[in-house]
């Protein structure tokens, strides 16, 4: 369904419209679907009528008008679940959409390896951990383990990256110590638990500890599903990755940040896709693997 032609096809040859509305089955119909729960009973017929009325009131306040409650179901004595379809009046102004551009080019594993070899001249050392009380290693493992995630191999798969995965619940002091001992170029920490802002507090604590440990601070990277990718500055780290990050993105970022680009590629032109063309052995395999 996601492969259906966009509404823009009618204006083929014309410019993409700047003002759009949600699309149900007709351009401009504004149709959307939402589901929610209200703490209202759904027992007697009068309760049911009141519950549906309550759902319609919420829908109207959300800008869905007209709206239709297509499904209502009582859950226990005190709650009702609703699915509502409706038409929204809101307009989307595409000219006002702000997108955070990725500041680094996405590279294939071969390109990452080449860039590290030529730019750094040795293996790039990455130390990874879940810090604080966080025992959820799923995220860091997905990035580091050779198995990787979503069809992309993890950093262990990259010949020019040496990975030291310290695992879960690593104390900050131990992380700093091990990073020094391993000669880490980059430190990756993953935080899943967000109760009482643990993910923010822990990472700030970590960056402070690295700052206090001396001048040769490794590149600090934090990742987790609840991070705002724009929060690197306030966390005191160099980069923050949010939900859905793939190992390839992290590897590309590390190569971009730590290994100077090979000069010929830099001079070669403006199109980032063509930059790797100079490295004959490492034609870009594919940008974005098939998941």
């Amino acid at each position, binding site marked *: 369904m996601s492969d259906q032609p966009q509404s823009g096809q009618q204006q083929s040859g014309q410019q993409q419209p700047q003002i759009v509305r949600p699309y149900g089955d007709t351009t401009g119909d504004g149709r959307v679907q939402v589901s929610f*729960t209200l703490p209202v009973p759904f027992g007697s017929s009068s309760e049911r009528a009141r519950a549906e009325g309550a759902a319609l009131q919420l829908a109207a306040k959300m800008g869905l008008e007209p709206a239709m409650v297509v499904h209502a179901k009582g859950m226990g004595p005190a709650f009702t679940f609703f699915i509502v379809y409706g038409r929204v009046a809101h307009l989307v102004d595409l000219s006002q959409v702000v997108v955070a551009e990725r500041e680094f080019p996405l590279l294939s594993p071969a390109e990452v390896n080449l860039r590290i070899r030529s730019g750094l001249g040795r293996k790039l050392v990455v130390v990874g951990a879940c810090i604080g009380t966080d*025992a959820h290693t799923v995220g860091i493992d997905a990035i580091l*383990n050779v*198995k990787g995630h979503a069809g992309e191999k993890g950093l262990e798969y990259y010949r020019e990256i040496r990975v030291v995965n310290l695992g879960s619940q690593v104390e900050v002091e131990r992380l700093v110590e091990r990073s020094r001992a391993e000669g880490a170029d980059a430190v990756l920490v993953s935080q899943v638990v967000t*109760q009482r802002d643990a993910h923010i507090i822990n990472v700030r604590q970590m960056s402070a500890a690295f700052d206090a440990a001396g001048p040769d601070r490794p590149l600090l990277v934090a990742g987790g599903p609840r991070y705002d990718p724009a929060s690197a500055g306030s966390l005191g780290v160099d980069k923050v990755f949010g939900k859905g990050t793939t190992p390839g993105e992290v590897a590309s970022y590390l190569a971009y940040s730590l290994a100077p680009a090979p000069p010929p590629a830099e001079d070669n032109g403006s199109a980032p896709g063509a930059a790797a063309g100079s490295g004959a052995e490492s034609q870009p395999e594919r940008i974005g693997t098939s998941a």
Partner: protein
Amino acid sequence: MEAASSPAAHATTGPDRPVTRRLSLDPALVREARELARRAGRPIVDMARTHTTVSVERAVLRLAGLQGADPDGMPWVNRLADAVRDSVGLEHGVALPAWDALRAGSYPDLGALARDAAAGKVSFRIPGGADAHAARAAAGAALGQGIARIDAQRAARDQMIAQTSQPRMPWIYLIVATGDIYEDIPQAQAAAREGADIIAVIRSTGQSLLDYVPEGATREGFAGTYATQENFRLMRAALDETSRELGRYVRLTNYASGLCMPEIASLAGLERLDMMLNDCMYGIIFRDINPRRTFIDQRFSRQIHARAGIIINTGEDNYLTTADAVDAAHTVVVSQLMNEFFGKEAGLADGQLGLGHAFEINPAVPDSFLLELAHAQLIRELFPDAPLKYMPPTKHMTGNVFAGYLLDAFFNLAGVMTDQSILLIGMMTEGIHTPFLADRDLALENVRYVRDAAGRLGESFQPVPGGFIDQRASQVLAEAVALLRKITDEGLLTAIADGTFGITKRPADGGRGLDGVIEQADGYFNPARNILENPESAAGSPAAELSEIGASS
């Protein structure tokens, strides 16, 4: 073939219907797999029999009734065990010096002894002769009472099931995890009313690495609620009330894992928890707990679980969240065989082995559902008397909740087609947020639909001999046997160090908790183990107290 349609409730905890054989597995290969698992596990058992840990010794004190904590929240069992260790070591076990000091100082109870010991007012010794005999007898009597409490709770469970009813399998397993026991209770009761047969209270994420069990009712935790004796008691009492209301026994689950595994197992037995997560290797691989510590703690925990009638749940599903579910399918089987060997050696019955596995194959892989059926059926047939625990997809759940709902339905379908015993209910919002009330309701609607619409599909599900499903199951079994041969050759600890399971490498002398491992001296005395390893002797009988530790069970 047995009709799969009799839903009669049995008091047994194994599958409530005979398992249908659907695959042409080579019985010789199955026998070899078990024999290899036994050979790989035997040296580990020998190590566990000749060692103890600080947590095993603290569990002895807990079973003898020592409760409470000092003003800083450090439990008295820790204070007393530490005092004994600092003074005479734990090589002889905590019981001998502790009960000797109890007698010598005429203390009214262990609590009074612990308070004085913590204040440095007690000098411990390893008694000999008549003093040793008296200390052993006193400790044996105290532990006899503790184990009798576990026996009474087991009888109370049977009685509750008789008064209410045993739910039909597959049992529906739901999780609550607010961090606050007083929030957990109404959520658990609501989930039970919505159809949950088993409530699992997820632990606070930091707890596995705490070397003590927190005390009292707790109202804050990280992504879960602390496992404490009081929290166990509160939740079990609430679910008893709901079980009576519903006329159906609602089981309670927690985690006997991490550094305090034996203590938590003991508390579970004392407070009548019904199932406990208790894997032989999970802590090693996913929590970086020292392998030796884990295996020693695990053996004692399982002896307690065996006595308490608790079903253990093993954690093989976790391997598939880090490793690929197709490539690593055989590691699940290998780990299950190891869990089975260790579990039975510790006294668990087949009906207490809730071996885990999961529906985690990438849905983009062609024939992924057939592969899932092959894996699930293979495990069902390898362990026909075990209450298997089947875990829903997590790794390939995306933000597309609609596709996720479909995947969960296929998981439920695979579960009923292959006679799984315990289904953890998949949430379409897995990986997005902790489940909304509506997510849980929709998930239950999903499983109810599949169970009602296709619950008897199993009786007509017969994969073609030599066909894709049949061949895949045999292939996974063959790969498991090959891996077991390798493990048997090089040793299980080496295999774990090499990253055989879950891809993570864990050396035998690495990880946390190794400093809490103690080699037993001659004359090591553990009155709890003596009773547990001689189940025919009544708890508290003099024969159990005085039997030597070398006596085989």
